[in-house]
């Protein structure tokens, strides 16, 4: 975390002489209101996290009866039972494959598209960006059923199984993150000076050589940010996962309901499973969040 703290102060250190600092030192009332606000907000944010963590270590009677702030006894049983109550490991692998593949493909495709838009002038450029961005506003429910029919028909016509398969889900999810990724990378690529790739082209690189040797390395924070976004989108999606998967391809988004829809809800197991499926994304996100902020600052928020 120290890296983030040093990175974020937007002030160029030199442009802030000590003399100018003191009149800007915030008054006490400001410091106190900030303390109160941020404390309350932290409580609100962390409350569910605490419930998730503490309940996942409670014996079943603690989560079936009246809520207790502190467990009557600590147990790791829920963490052992979650794997046998539902086939959680299989869901986990499915989610990893689907989200991982969707992320890689989405990032690569977005890099090409953003490079095309930011470096070339061509007919239909504006139409392309507007169309791609406007797909963001489509209600998922509008194209859920048609997409399902298309996948089934492609399957019948060509034998490529898209419906119920991981491939179909990968294809769907990668287009979900694509518009935002392209938009953010366009902004990011624009901030990489053109002289750099022109110099590379003079040195004998083709346009793709310039892209991969000059532009992409200069835009790593933006690309990492886009990858984090794409992974989270695919890892968390519920609607399409619930319609487009079957028993073998089910992802965590749907699989987690396995604990909750039975007559007797094992809340301690639900919480343990929620925690287990959250750890990879939350840890990854927190590690990479400074890229996301840097990427947003340089790219999207201009």
């Amino acid at each position, binding site marked *: 975390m120290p890296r983030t703290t040093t990175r974020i102060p937007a002030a160029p250190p030199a442009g802030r002489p000590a003399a100018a600092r003191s009149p800007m030192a915030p008054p006490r009332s400001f410091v106190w209101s900030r303390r109160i606000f941020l404390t309350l907000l932290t409580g609100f944010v962390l409350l569910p996290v605490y419930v998730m963590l503490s309940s996942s270590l409670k014996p079943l009677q603690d989560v079936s009866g009246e809520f207790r702030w502190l467990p009557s006894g600590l147990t790791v049983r829920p963490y052992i039972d979650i794997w046998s109550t539902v086939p959680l490991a299989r869901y986990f692998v499915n989610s990893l494959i689907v989200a991982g593949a969707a992320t890689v493909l989405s990032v690569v495709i977005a890099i090409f598209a953003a490079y*095309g838009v930011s470096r070339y002038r061509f007919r239909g450029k504006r139409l392309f960006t507007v169309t791609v961005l406007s797909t963001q506003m489509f209600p998922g429910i509008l194209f859920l*059923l048609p997409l399902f029919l298309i996948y089934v028909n492609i399957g019948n016509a060509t034998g490529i199984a898209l419906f119920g398969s991981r491939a179909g889900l990968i294809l769907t999810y990668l287009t979900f993150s694509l518009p935002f990724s392209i938009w953010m990378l366009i902004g990011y690529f624009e901030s990489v000076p053109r002289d750099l790739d022109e110099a590379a*082209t003079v040195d004998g690189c*083709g346009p793709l050589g310039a892209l991969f040797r000059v532009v992409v390395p200069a835009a790593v924070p933006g690309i990492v940010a886009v990858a984090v976004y794409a992974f989270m989108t695919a890892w968390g999606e519920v609607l399409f996962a619930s319609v487009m998967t079957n028993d073998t391809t089910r992802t965590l988004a749907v699989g987690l*309901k396995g604990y909750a829809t039975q007559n007797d809800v094992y809340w301690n197991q639900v919480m343990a499973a929620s925690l287990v499926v959250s750890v990879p*994304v939350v840890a990854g996100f927190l590690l990479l969040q400074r890229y996301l*902020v840097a990427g947003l600052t340089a790219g999207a928020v*201009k």
Partner: protein
Amino acid sequence: MTVTAQPAVGGEAPPGAPGSVPRRRTGRVRRNVLPYLLLLPALLLELLVHLVPMVIGIVMSFKELTQFYIRDWGAAPWAAFDNYSLSVDLDAPVGEALLHSFFVTCAFTVLSVGLCWLIGTTAAVYMQENFRGRGFLRAVFLVPYALPVYAAVITWAFMFQRDNGLVNHVLHDQLGLTDGPSFWLIGDNSFVALLVVSVWKGWPFAFLIVMAGLQNIPRELYEAASIDGAGLFQQLRRITLPSLRPVNQVLVLVLFLWTFNDFNTPYVLFGQAAPEAADLISIHIYQSSFVTWNFGTGSAMSVLLLLFLLVVTGVYLVLTSRGRRTADA
């Protein structure tokens, strides 16, 4: 400007080389084709997953598409505008329910977007200056954004349980604010529950974007203002908020579209059938199509929803962009 400034693509045709006329032509052709090639994968996928299905969805909305025709939907009889008139007929139960769901969604969206923006902006402004523990707090605040929707919402569903949830335990057992344990996930309270979860989940995104936007405000503005004797509130009103305008324009729109179309939160919180008080439009349409197996009507409702969002987005962009131009002038 880009095209003229680019040297010969590929660099394999040095200017003035023998036979440069035809080679330059191929260079130009490649140069013109290359951007399209770069965009092709993105375009094809968007066509496959978004645009073509949308067109099919529009066609379906004019058909009488019930479960009998699902295998061969092309054979379903044409229904002209029947699905639409059914959806907007306010005297019939279907239209009435849709209108109710629409109003619920509007109220929910306005409250949720407003609160998300307010909390996110306040937190970002408070955290603009460095202080001890700021980096840690920022990481904590981003946790709700990073958590997968279903994991976070299931936890909230547990907290809102009537008999073994935290919310009733605090409100009833510990503070004695309610006469008895209340139901949160059915009945009128469900609207509040949904709103709380939605704000908890949504505000960090506003925080993230505003925080990024704040970093593009030149430091010197604040220094000049404080030398001129402007207080913190003045600085907020005269510098911070105006500088955030372009960021806010996009942020509010994105929050609006996400919240209005939100399916995941109510679906995980309530299961397939949302209580009437929290019957968001996406859930409502999902139920109208998949639970009652009437896909034609469901599609018509989706098209109406899309039209509404298009109009709102268009009007919003025209209004906010005009305001921006006047402000700049």
